[in-house]
């Protein structure tokens, strides 16, 4: 009788190979055959055995094979893991699937054959690199070792494989031809194959039983209190799960770089100071951004796939307002270099704050009588109350930033006194419409500035009809300010609502307040009427092919002109920077260090470089400060940013989250807005903030929901002394259920080896 024992991992198909072998042997002669598997407790990846007995007569044994004539190892990684060579008969042989030299195993057998079955199988397209199907190749090699008929084997392989019969039969043949060590073929093995009887059992039962009379004191009995203790399955793992914090879309989309998920989490624990501090690391204007930012975070919030985005703006505003009156220690000046910043807007002030925190003495020069830049001059009171702005700037000054007002300066004036100059003058010059009699119109950005700084309504009276040209934030703020001055504003925009660059909720508020919109229109001419009003010729537009911005380009419709007569025209079609700082010299404003001839390095930040929102300006300021510091200290700095893996909606297990309505602040829309510049949207209180933060999905970060703990079929996940969920890699067999059931994608699952700490 011939006895073969095979070693492989569950899922590799060895059991099928042994079934096919049984069929082959039954056709090689009048053999009785018996093939069966021995599965462990675990399945895929776990070491398994398969057995095959072949005899001319009855097989009087239905137990596992302990003393095989031939040992076949399908997966060589098992050799160090399980005692594959155990019990091999003295004259037996070993067949290994390997490309390596097998002589190191010569202590186990004097007859070792090798076959590169994985290579052969992959060349024949059988299985994949991670799971090659080596069955047919191993069968071919076994045929060679036993000097058996490969043609019968090929036929039966082709008949019995579930797919690719030809490739499998070829693979058997290639393996048959390529067994290494075949020059020393084992004749004894071949003879045992043709022998009828099993070799007599040679056991000295007296001896065995005399040893066994002394019971093993150390015998382990299982206990349900440690059900897995006998079954360490960790080394059977192929794929390994682990906890991995990934980037949330709210954080990755914040231009300032704010750790949104982090501060939301702290706020949900009522750790309002810590939450504020976390925001402040990236954003020194939380009260302002909470109010006026378009909330890039919310736009990308995965909660949008369930109901509405988390009201991150409200939380940020709450945290900012709550911390107005905090202690602000003055930063210690530790660097010798002095730095000048031109322009006290969000970019300039942020740059200055960061540089002061890094130890540089920093002075900000502001042309206007008040600091704040566009936050001060461009954003109306009803969106951003002045006291909020004052508080946030005051706290920056307390930290040590020196702000000099009413001082319009050029780079040249500063290059001898300072070691670096950062220009962040904003975009306060309105663009031209380039139409006839353009001087009849008022510049929107100037209008807002005059009104904000001096309360100058610039002649706008109650009941006046005003045409506002443009579709950006300036146009909207102008229209809403005009409304409050009692006028009837109509916004003319050359594209449609969808293409408007203005913040969408601001547009919604404007509509609610009563601002009218005329989309797909553009002024082509203006003239003064006899009664002192303005006649505007408007042309209708249609959308053509997309332009560089990706938006469809507006194209005038021929002969579609019509005329309107209004009291006033305010243009708000774009803004540009004031080049006074460069004395009118040509300069290309871009983020960071720019090419401009001066005795000291010149940097650029804020709206003049890119962006157009407060938060973008803050992000720009953070980066500019980093670059200035790197430049002065000769440290490496790169504008290149690596994009981390962001948890997108397809990675969220939405079934684990319940719908929960968004908490919004109350909106204040009185019937009569005349002279009402009070803030439109109210903030939320402590309790509502905690409730709102509880809506966070925690994208990409473990929030100890315990799904992994509950679902782990091996109880391999536990809660450690610090209350953290941890995987016990002694027992984790890599089934991946924890990863699958993680609601927020805070785990990864990959080919890697991890051991317990």
């Amino acid at each position: 009788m011939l006895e073969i024992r095979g070693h492989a991992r569950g899922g590799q198909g060895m059991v099928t190979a042994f079934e096919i072998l049984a069929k082959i042997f039954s056709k090689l002669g009048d053999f009785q055959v018996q093939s069966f598997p021995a599965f462990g407790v675990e399945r895929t990846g776990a070491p398994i055995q398969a057995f095959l007995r072949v005899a001319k007569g009855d097989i009087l044994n239905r137990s596992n094979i302990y003393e095989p004539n031939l040992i076949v190892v399908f997966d060589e990684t098992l050799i160090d893991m399980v005692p594959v060579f155990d019990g091999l008969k003295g004259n037996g042989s070993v067949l290994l699937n390997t490309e390596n030299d097998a002589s190191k195993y010569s202590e186990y057998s004097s007859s070792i054959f090798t076959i590169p079955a994985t290579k052969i199988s992959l060349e024949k397209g059988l299985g994949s690199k991670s799971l090659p199907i080596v069955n047919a190749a191993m069968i071919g090699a076994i045929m060679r070792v036993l000097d058996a008929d490969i043609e019968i084997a090929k036929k039966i392989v082709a008949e019995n494989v579930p797919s690719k019969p030809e490739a499998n039969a070829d693979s058997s043949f290639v393996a048959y031809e390529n067994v290494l060590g075949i020059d020393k073929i084992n004749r004894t093995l071949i003879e045992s194959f043709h022998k009828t009887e099993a070799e007599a059992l040679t056991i000295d039962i007296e001896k065995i039983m005399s040893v066994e009379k002394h019971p093993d004191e150390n015998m382990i009995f299982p206990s349900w209190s440690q059900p897995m203790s006998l079954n360490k399955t960790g080394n059977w793992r192929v794929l390994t799960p682990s906890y991995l914090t990934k980037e949330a879309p709210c954080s990755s989309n914040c231009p300032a770089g704010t750790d949104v998920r982090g501060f939301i989490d702290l706020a949900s624990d009522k750790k309002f100071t810590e939450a504020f501090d976390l925001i402040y690391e990236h954003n020194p204007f939380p009260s302002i951004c909470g109010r006026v930012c378009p909330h890039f975070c919310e736009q990308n919030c995965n909660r949008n796939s369930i109901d509405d985005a988390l009201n991150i703006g409200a939380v940020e505003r709450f945290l900012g307002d709550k911390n107005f009156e905090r202690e602000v220690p003055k930063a210690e000046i530790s660097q010798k270099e002095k730095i000048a910043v031109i322009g006290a807007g969000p970019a300039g002030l942020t740059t200055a704050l960061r540089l002061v925190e890094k130890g540089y003495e920093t002075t900000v020069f502001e042309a206007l009588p008040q600091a704040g830049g566009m936050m001060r001059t461009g954003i109306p009171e009803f969106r951003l109350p002045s006291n909020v702005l004052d508080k946030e700037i005051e706290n920056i000054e307390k930290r040590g930033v020196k702000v000099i007002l009413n001082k319009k300066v050029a780079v040249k004036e500063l290059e001898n006194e300072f070691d670096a100059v950062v220009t962040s003058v904003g975009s306060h010059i309105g663009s031209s419409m380039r139409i006839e009699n353009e001087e009849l119109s008022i510049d929107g950005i100037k209008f807002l500035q005059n009104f904000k700084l001096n309360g100058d309504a610039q002649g706008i009276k109650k009941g006046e009809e005003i045409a506002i040209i443009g579709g950006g934030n300036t146009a909207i703020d102008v229209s809403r300010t005009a409304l409050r001055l009692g006028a009837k504003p109509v916004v003319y925009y050359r594209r449609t609502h969808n293409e408007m660059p203005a913040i969408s909720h601001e547009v919604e508020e404007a509509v609610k307040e009563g601002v009218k919109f005329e989309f797909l229109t553009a002024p082509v001419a203006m003239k003064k009427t006899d009664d002192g009003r303005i006649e505007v010729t408007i042309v209708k537009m249609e959308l053509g092919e997309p332009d560089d911005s990706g938006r469809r380009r507006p194209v005038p419709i021929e002969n579609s002109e019509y005329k309107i007569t209004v009291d006033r025209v305010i243009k708000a079609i774009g803004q540009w920077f004031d080049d006074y700082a460069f004395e009118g010299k040509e300069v290309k404003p871009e983020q960071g260090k720019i090419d401009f001839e001066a005795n000291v390095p010149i940097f650029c930040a804020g709206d003049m470089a890119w962006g157009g929102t407060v938060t973008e300006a803050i992000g720009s300021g953070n980066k500019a400060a980093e670059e200035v510091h790197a430049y002065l200290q000769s440290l490496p700095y790169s504008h290149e940013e690596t994009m981390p893996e962001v948890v997108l909606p397809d990675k969220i297990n939405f079934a684990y989250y319940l719908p929960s309505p968004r908490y919004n602040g109350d909106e204040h829309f009185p019937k009569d807005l005349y002279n009402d510049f009070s803030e439109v949207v109210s903030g939320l209180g402590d309790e509502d903030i905690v409730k709102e933060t509880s809506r966070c999905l925690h994208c990409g970060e473990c929030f100890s929901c315990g799904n992994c703990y509950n679902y782990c079929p091996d109880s391999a996940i536990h809660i450690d002394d610090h209350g953290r969920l941890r995987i016990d890699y002694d027992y984790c067999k890599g089934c991946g259920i924890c990863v699958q059931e993680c609601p927020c994608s805070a785990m990864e699952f990959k080919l890697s080896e991890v051991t317990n700490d």
Partner: protein
Amino acid sequence: MTNGTITEEKNIANNSGKTVYPRHTEKIMKGNFAAAEAAKLCRSGFIPAYPITPQTTIVEELSAKVARGEMDAAYVNMDSEHSVFAAAMGAALAGERVFTATSGQGLFYAHEVLHAIAHFRLPIVICNVGRPSIPWNIWSDQSDSISQRDTGWVQIYGESSQEVLDSVIQSFIIAEELDLPVMVVLDAFYQSHTSENIWIPEQQLVDEFLPAKKSKGDEIDLESPKSIGGLVPPEHYEKFNYTYWQNINQVEELTNKVGKDFGKHFGREYKAVESFNINKNTKLVLVTMSSITTTARGVIKNHPDVGLLKLRLFKPFPKQSVLEALKELPDDAIIAPIERNFLGDNYGATIQELMRAFYNERNFKMYDFYTGLGGKDVPPLTIEKIIYKAKNNPKDVNWIDLEY
């Protein structure tokens, strides 16, 4: 062959001396597939199914056979084993020949319905692939079927998968003749997942032996509605039990008769029990069921004074056949049953049944041996240990490898 006694004239030996069965095809097949093949050959008309390891491939293969059009049967995926057996009961009441298969927890879950099937006198045949319950385990063990021994089902244990196939055919005859359900038990993995040589009889040969199910005239009939299973008052209840008792007492004799007829027809003869090397010189008799028998037969070849009693029919316990098989055995001989079952009692099921059979009849020395529970391998060495221990100062009950 490893099974039964071969009736010489029906079979021919080929050139190399191997037995060849006419009107059969030899295939290499796993036990579960042999069970499915048997259900097909018996023309089972209704198969309610629910999968459970290690039975799954039986119902999968039957599903495939029905889908391929090889079988004219209604195959119904049920939601649980309780439902499987309830559906089996309904179909049998309507006169269908019903087959299904289960294992371990599935059989436990069906327990209530097993009683109903037996005492509604429904001739259903099933295969049970033996596995235990808790501690959770999927491997070979007879605790599941043996714990159902008082439900009223006939139980037959097959030593090889050939025997399983042949026993399913015989079971339909026994079941339909006495209106009793029969459970054919095979071992998990050692049979269910073991590929071995199996002779498949041709359909015509089976049809000649097992005719189509005869109508008894009391099946459910839509044209003539009636109530089944109503409350039975005390004055009638015993009568049901009495008639059941009369029929269950005929099972042993009928099993031997059907086994003999099967031998004449197919070339492989079967009995309720089988004995090996039991004579007046035998000092020790091992008692086994299912696949351990084969290994034990190999081992006793080296022990001229050790005999082997294989129980094929376990329930109702074949008392007369056992006494007959041990007729020549001297009274001072030792009986050593091997128990691949644990029922929470001191003694395993085999010795319990043997003791009842021997009471007032024979007075052997009896020692019980637990081994192979939950699929623990029983190699020749374990059998050697049992033989040694039985002869050398045995305990009343012995646990091989755990106690000395």
